[in-house]
């Protein structure tokens, strides 16, 4: 466990570096993604009871290294979802996060993805990530770049497993949808 942590710490600069080089993670891209995280709340329906009692905040969690900086806070400032306030929770480890409704898994958690997903294998959490093939590995929404624009893929099976209903209008925007039976479409 300690070795895994140590590795992660060692690799972190490399990942950052590669991400910067390969993914062209610009400031505007961060803002777009932050806005998207918030916007997902409008097209996703959580199972009853998952949002807690009325007035309880909708929580957006960031696990691992935070790539947004202040962009996420700015994106949700003075905004609500389902008439509830929005709370942001950030932690380097997923285990430290409780009551997440949207969980952004940082690219820094790529190596520990399966453990992370397992750790939060409970209904009512929309998982989002920049990690490649995130949706193939059990994640629900994965950011992708198409023509230097931020788009996303959706794993409908995972969403169903998490008992989340994703709006057709959102699905229409998805570059790829994974679904058992259809096997996915583009």
């Amino acid at each position, binding site marked *: 466990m300690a070795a895994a942590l140590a590795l992660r710490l060692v690799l972190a600069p490399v990942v950052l570096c590669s991400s910067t080089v390969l993914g062209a993670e610009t400031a505007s891209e961060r803002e*777009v993604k932050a*806005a*998207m995280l918030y*916007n997902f*709340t*409008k*097209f996703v329906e959580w199972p009853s009871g998952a949002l807690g009692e009325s007035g309880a905040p909708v929580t957006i969690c960031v696990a691992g290294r935070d790539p947004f900086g202040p962009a996420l806070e700015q994106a949700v400032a003075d*905004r609500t*979802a*389902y008439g509830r306030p929005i709370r942001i929770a950030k932690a380097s480890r997923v285990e430290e996060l409780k009551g997440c409704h949207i969980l952004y898994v940082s690219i820094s958690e790529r190596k520990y993805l399966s453990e992370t997903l397992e750790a939060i294998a409970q209904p009512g959490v929309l998982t989002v990530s920049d990690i490649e093939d995130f949706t193939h590995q059990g994640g629900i929404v994965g950011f992708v770049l198409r023509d230097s*624009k*931020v*788009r*996303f893929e959706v794993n409908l099976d995972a969403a169903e497993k998490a008992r989340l209903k994703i*709006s057709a*209008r*959102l699905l*229409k*925007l998805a570059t790829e949808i994974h679904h058992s039976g259809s096997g996915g479409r583009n």
Partner: protein
Amino acid sequence: MTATFRNLSIRRKLVTIAMVSCTVALLLAASAFTVYEVISFRRSINHELVTIGQMLADNSGAAVAFNDARAARDTLASLRAEPRVASAAIYDQKGKVFAQYTRAEEKPENLKAPEADGTYFREGNLRVYHPVIIDGERVGVVYLKSDLKEINSRLLQYSGIALGVLAVSALVALIVSSKLQRVISKPILHLAETASLVSMEKDYSIRAQKSTNDELGILVSRFNDMMAQVQSRDMALQTAQDELEARVQDRTKELQVEIAERRRAQDDLLQAKQAAEESNRAKSAFLANMSHELRTPLNAIIGYSEMLQEDAEATGEVQFSADLRKIHHAGRHLLALINDVLDLSKIEAGKMQLHMETFAVADVLRDAEITTEPLARINNNRLVIGSDAPGGMIHADPVRFKQCLLNLLSNACKFTENGSVTLSVSYADTNRGRWQRWAVADTGIGIAPGDVKKLFQSFSQVDNSSTRKYQGTGLGLAISDRLCRLMGGYITVESQVGKGSVFTIHMPAAAGFTASSLQSLSSKVLELKKPEEVSGDSARPDSAQQGEPDHA
């Protein structure tokens, strides 16, 4: 326009009215229809655009939220099925154009910042701004524009249809009204023709034919009634004129006859007048001759009988003296009679000539006293002579006036015995001026009222017996009366039987006379009025009963 219309014939007017009415009605209907159509079209397109905008906003909400311009364009591209939408756009939250759509053949619009939500009709375009709201949050605006081309083309279409309908219906109205106008225009035209025929031919027996029972029928009936009245009046007038002409002719003939008769009568009168004048001249000549012829032998008889009487008295042959005196008296009486007759004749023939003078009253009184004194003494009468104004003057013919006065005095003396005869001169002022009154009063036998009228008639004494008893020609008063009147005066009588009489000569007072009035009086007297006129003038001032028989 109105003047031209007013001068149109009835037919054209009716047709024009029908067509104008039809056209106006159709135009109004078409306009109303078009306006309604435009309004409802606008409403429907407005509603449609709003609906489309709503749908687009719903469909593009996610794309805007996730900044997916392509998805938004795809959504807008669905507008290809809506040809009414000329262009469309989606603005993001900040008002920047996020996605744009333009109809195939249109140029892309230069878009500006979005306006407030709502619909705008402007510059022939309908614009709709509709908000994109997700979960109560406004994330963008959908913009739609319709250029109303359709409504314009539809309007054009309507106009074409309306024009077509208008043309067709005008044509139909023309045909129908051309046929129908005859119902109204035919009787009127017939009436007008009849009226012109009547006025041209002056034939009032012409009648218009009544073909309908409406107001025009009434008009025709009234026209015919009027014509009947005119005709009857015309005939009456003609008859009256004929009658008048006939009457005028008759009257003319009558007048001609009358004129001829009058002319004859006039000729007769003229002849009669000439004959009368002739005979008058003959009479005057006869009188003048007679005056001379009668007096000459009579003077011889009187003269010789006087001489014989003187001789007989001288020789003492008294038995002849009395007879000769009788002859002498008879001769003198005859001479007086002849003189009276001649005087009267002269007066009545208008030949009496007067010589008017102004002389003293006193002279007249003195002469009268001298002459009357012996006469008064015969019947033992007392003669009294007096005057109010002894210095007065009288204007008259002295000889003739004295004759008149003496006549009255001698009458008074003759019909009074043992009484008195009074001559007095006085003056009286009347409304006809100042008069001089010569009153001869006696205390004699008097005259009965019934006899007064006869007094001044020629050859009249009160009764025949008196003539014998008192003698006289019976002409004295008649002559005096006429002479006084010729001199401007007149004689009145007051008498009571048994008490006496008063004969008064009234003469205009000479003292008040001016030269001109004297002259006018003279000329008036010298006119020598006809005796009839003079005697016929019985109306005299102070006229009292006339009486007392004539005393020659």
